[in-house]
């Protein structure tokens, strides 16, 4: 008699000339665990959908109880609407299959809503903590529901908690990614605005332009300054430009190079460039760096630069003299 051990769960052992057959018990506990997980998973998504109202209430309560609640930035109704929208979408797309796979495409709408909320919060001025409380509050609410409803089976609770934790932690990560992206957008916009507003070219007199530079000069900004200045020289037909750098906090060799370039470009255009407002510490740095500014006209203040410009244009500013004798 031949026994196929692959077909029957039978072990045959030769023992002192006897062959012992023993039928192994079916490993029923494994399959039962698998089915229980499957049903549990189904349970989670169905259960959550059933308990939606409860979860939303818990979540809202958690958010309202938090010390970081910002009623000044967002009304409670708005908050409830936002929370409801997110929970609604999440519970709509959640199924037993995708619950353990947070990279699933099914979750894209959820992540989109989450990103939208996070972005708008970043722009409204919410702190990272306040935004975090929003998402992790949902986690707490969901986990609480799971514990309440599945408490008779600790193993299932454990399994469900781990799955939901993964999903909601991923939502938290996405929230923070977009939150930071939102903040970066704000910073970029402000940088652009600063670059735009801080390089005005003023016409102080017929033929004289003044360019007060405030803030650090870098390559990009010098380029803007240079272009603005040269454009204005062409437009106004000015022959003298005064570059006032009293608002520049520090000068290094690169910045000095940029200034020298600007002066050279103005000269090529046929205008003269005067630099004013060099502060003592900047003068020190320039000399220590060994930068040669000797062929550039430098003046201490904007006033003296203007005076020099008047001299070059053969203009004179005089105090009005009232001749009392004549009037009398």
């Amino acid at each position, binding site marked *: 008699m031949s026994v196929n051990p692959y077909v029957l769960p039978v072990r045959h052992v030769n023992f002192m000339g006897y062959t012992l057959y023993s039928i192994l018990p079916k490993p029923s506990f494994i399959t039962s665990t698998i089915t229980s997980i499957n049903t549990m998973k189904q349970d989670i998504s169905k259960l959550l959908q059933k308990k939606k109202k409860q979860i939303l209430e818990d979540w809202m309560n958690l958010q309202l109880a938090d010390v970081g609640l910002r009623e000044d930035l967002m009304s409670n109704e708005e908050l409830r609407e936002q929370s409801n929208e997110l929970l609604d979408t999440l519970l709509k797309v959640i199924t037993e299959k995708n619950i353990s796979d947070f990279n699933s495409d099914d979750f894209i709408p959820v992540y989109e809503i989450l990103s939208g909320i996070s972005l708008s919060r970043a722009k409204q001025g919410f702190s990272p903590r306040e935004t975090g409380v929003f998402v992790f509050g949902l986690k707490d609410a969901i986990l609480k529901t799971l514990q309440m409803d599945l408490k008779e089976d600790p193993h299932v609770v454990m399994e469900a908690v781990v799955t939901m934790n993964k999903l909601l932690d991923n939502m938290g990560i996405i929230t923070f990614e977009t939150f930071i992206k939102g903040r970066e957008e704000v910073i970029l916009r402000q940088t652009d605005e600063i670059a735009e507003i801080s390089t005005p070219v003023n016409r102080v007199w017929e033929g004289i332009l003044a360019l007060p530079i405030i803030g650090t000069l870098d390559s990009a900004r010098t380029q803007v300054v240079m272009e603005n200045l040269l454009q204005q020289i062409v437009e106004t037909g000015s*022959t003298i430009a005064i570059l006032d750098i009293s608002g520049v906090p520090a000068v290094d060799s690169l910045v000095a190079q940029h200034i020298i370039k600007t002066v*050279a470009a103005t000269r090529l255009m*046929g205008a003269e460039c005067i630099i004013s407002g060099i502060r003592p510490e900047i003068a020190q740095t320039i000399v220590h760096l060994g930068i040669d500014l000797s062929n550039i006209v430098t003046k201490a203040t904007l006033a003296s630069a203007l005076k020099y410009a008047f001299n070059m244009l053969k203009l004179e500013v005089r105090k009005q003299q009232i001749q009392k004798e004549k009037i009398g």
Partner: protein
Amino acid sequence: MDRIPILRMGKFLLVTIQVDLYDRLATNLEADLVQMVNKTGARGVLIDISALSIVDSFMGRILGNIGSMARIMDAETVVVGMQPAVAITLVELGLELKGVHTALNVEKGMELLHTKLNSDEEVEETEADADNTE
């Protein structure tokens, strides 16, 4: 062969570059201009490059060369009407056109040439006076 016209205005020569200046044209201009300075005894050269929107290092060098050559032949060179983009390019290329005067437009360039010429004449006159008194 294409040439850029060189106009004579009294003691000055006037060159307006209205076309894209390619290398051959630029070298021709350089040679012609030096010839003209020699022939007319001009005291100043005014080059209008307001129509020039693109410049390369070769062009920058030619402009500088014209300035230096004219200087040796006792004529001042004024380049007028340089576009901002051209000025920035030249500065980035490290060409500062030393020995060439610049002005915003033809009018201001002419003014500049006149003042240069007048001051030169004054110096000559005072020198002549000094010689006479001796």
